[in-house]
């Protein structure tokens, strides 16, 4: 089953090789800065929020849609949860996650109503709600940055909930517990996509919507699940973002949506739907993170990061497209020869 040609044709494998080559290059040029445990922890930490977002974006892309509203959902969930915690005085991290998740779910279902029931194009709907959610947040909830340490104790303290701590050159380096949230959610999404009929429905809808309908899949229900679940993930990611940064800033997060979608596409998901995997997505997230945080170690100025990401997207998406073209050309030649 695992023959070499099939392996090489997989986008996950290509992206893995690119990642290895990039890391090797950085390690050779700057071993003392790159090949260290603190740096590895830093990279992983930077992956967490974008990774959780990417899991949601993956589901949407597979189903043939696109969602750009998740950063607005995340920041709304974080900011509103913080306000509620401050107002009620119940200073609890589990409560923060529960509130964030619920707010995210609710906002995600708003998307689902427009997409599933009114059948509007997903990009238009989520572009609309991106601005709607964020605008409503700034107008009704406020635009003041809240430092968690000034108003909470436990919530702010969660910044220091680490699972591993090692001594480093200056002080110590730690891996934050929220990496476990990312891994747990990744496992959950992988299971849903691979082993549930709901997951297969997502692939089927992305592959051929009409055929999925005729086969008996419930399209609207599936879309409610997708956009609700994406909202839930975004809400959780928002709380993690707050904990890691120790603040709730209504002007943050929004603007990361395209990087997240880029990571998912680099990981092999098709923007046209029907294709994509969790492993590929995580590799895509890792690659984008390494580029944006470590390219500078290669001596490449930060201005070039965008350029490199752009080039990688074109190459990463271009290669499979070319392979597809070649396959089709071979097939037409075959028909012509008959």
């Amino acid at each position: 089953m695992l023959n070499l040609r099939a392996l090489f044709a997989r986008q996950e494998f290509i992206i893995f090789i690119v990642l290895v080559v990039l890391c090797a290059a950085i390690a050779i040029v700057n071993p003392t800065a790159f090949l260290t445990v603190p740096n590895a922890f830093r990279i992983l930490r930077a992956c967490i929020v974008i990774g959780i977002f990417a899991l949601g974006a993956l589901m949407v892309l597979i189903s043939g849609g696109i969602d750009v509203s998740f950063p607005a959902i995340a920041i709304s969930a974080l900011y509103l949860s913080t306000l509620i915690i401050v107002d009620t005085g119940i200073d609890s991290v589990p409560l923060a996650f529960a509130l964030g998740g619920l707010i995210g779910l609710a906002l995600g279902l708003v998307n689902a109503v427009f997409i599933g029931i009114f059948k509007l194009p997903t990009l238009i709907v989520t572009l609309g709600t991106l601005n709607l959610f964020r605008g409503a947040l700034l107008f009704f909830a406020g635009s003041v940055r809240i430092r968690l340490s000034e108003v909470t104790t436990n919530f702010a303290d969660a910044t220091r909930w680490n699972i591993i701590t090692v001594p480093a050159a200056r002080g110590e380096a730690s891996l934050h517990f929220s990496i476990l949230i990312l891994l747990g959610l990744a496992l959950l999404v992988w299971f849903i996509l691979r082993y549930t009929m709901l997951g297969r429905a997502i692939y089927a809808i992305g592959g051929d919507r009409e055929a999925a309908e005729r086969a008996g899949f419930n399209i609207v229900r599936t879309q409610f699940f997708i956009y609700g679940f994406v909202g839930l993930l975004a809400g959780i990611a928002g709380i993690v973002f707050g904990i890691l940064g120790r603040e709730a800033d209504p002007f943050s997060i929004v603007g990361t949506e395209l990087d997240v979608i880029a990571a998912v596409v680099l990981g092999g998901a098709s923007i046209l739907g029907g294709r994509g995997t969790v492993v590929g997505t995580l590799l895509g997230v890792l690659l984008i993170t390494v580029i944006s945080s470590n390219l500078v170690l290669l001596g490449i100025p930060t201005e070039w990061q965008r350029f490199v990401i752009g080039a990688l997207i074109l190459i990463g998406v271009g290669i499979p497209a070319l392979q597809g073209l070649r396959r089709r050309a071979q097939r037409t030649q075959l028909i012509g020869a008959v």
Partner: protein
Amino acid sequence: MTQELLRLEKIVKSFAGVQALKGVDLHINSGEITCLVGENGCGKSTLIKVISGVYQPDSGSIFIDGNSVSHLRPIDSIRSGIQVIYQDFSLFPNLSVAENLALNNQLSQGKRFVNWGEVRAIAQEALKRTDVNLPLDALVGDLSVADKQLIAISRAILQDARLVVMDEPTTALTGKEVAALFKVVRNLQAKGIAILFVSHKLNEVLEIAEKVVIMRNGEKVLDTPARELDVRKISYYMTGREIAESYYDYAPKPNETPLLKVEHLTLPGAFDDISFSLRGGEILGITGLLGSGRTELAKALFGESPAKSGTIHVKGQVVSIRSIQDAIRNHIGYVPEDRLTEGLFLQRSIGSNIVTSTLKQLLSRAGIVENKKVNSEIGQWVEDLRIKTRDVSLPVRSLSGGNQQRVVLAKWLSAKPEILILNGPTVGVDVGSKEELHQIIKDLAYKGMGIIIISDDIPELMATCNRILLMRRGRIGEELVTRQTGEGELSAKLRQSAV
């Protein structure tokens, strides 16, 4: 051994006052291969939809296994073992063969989780039942049309089908693939499964069918064992006339330079050493089986996939046609085979479709679109080609097949071509519309245009062309003058070209 599976009695179905089915009887026994033939619009699609439960007949009765069924819904039809394989197959290109085969089965069982071992087992069972060999892990999108069709059939059999209805299953298949499909069909027959095969390719019908049912204008005109029929007889019953429409009369003018002259045109793997000429006022037919190179030749003349060697003369001048722009510059127009994907913007309005290729000529000097000019141009074409619509701002998809085809024609005619290549001009067009389109084509030729029609529809070629080139494996096998050739002769020659 043979048992009655399905019986229809006096089925009547009308749409908006038009009777599509006027009291049709049909009976199908288990293990029997029945072919349903008829021209487009004769009511065969409606009949299939009655059998599959999509349409409810206005009157008449349906019996399954001898029991009267008063209200047949799609789900009842499936439960009693009737499976329809539509032309688009309803497969998922992004999923594996195994999953495509097993998905419907899993879904109808109400499964919530996927057991991949079970999926493979179901898929293997499905392929075993149809005796087909396909890689289970391949993505369906990477397979050929023929393989996709085999998957659709295998999936249908898996649902314990007792009657499989195939709607025009051979349209996109090559000769070899058709043979493979027929093998599968006979295999199913041996297992007692009945097949209802809808087609208008008469040679195939005669090859596979035990019983032929011919429909015309919503009525069954013949229901007889296939061995009592030949192509001539079937076409007579299908069309209701011994000879198709009148021949096209063309009187050559002496010493006239041909509009188009092609010499030794070659594209390796597609066509080889093609030479012919076309004069103004001529309608030249090019026919051959799928894969004979007829479409490739047309595309080469239109610059879509240019020939590798050979020369093309337009009005006596050697021209180089390397791109579609070159062809248009030399006043060559091409109406593609698949108007839905290649020829039209389905969502856009009828009017804007007509003027897309000529909008530039309708601009004012400042480069602004002059609505008055555009509208009069559109109105002119709608009138000339008798396009039936109440409003040209409606989307093209609101039109019937025949009228859509006229919009494609209008689009190309508005570019004022002198040479017009029509590929399958009346595929999917109903009978009445077909004859009108033929008349329009003839009128264009009378006015001096040189027309090439690429088609495997023999009555169509006979009715419109004055000369016909028969292509065989990329070469011109024979040139026939329509007046001196019989319809049966041509179809026999076309059939022979397969071997």
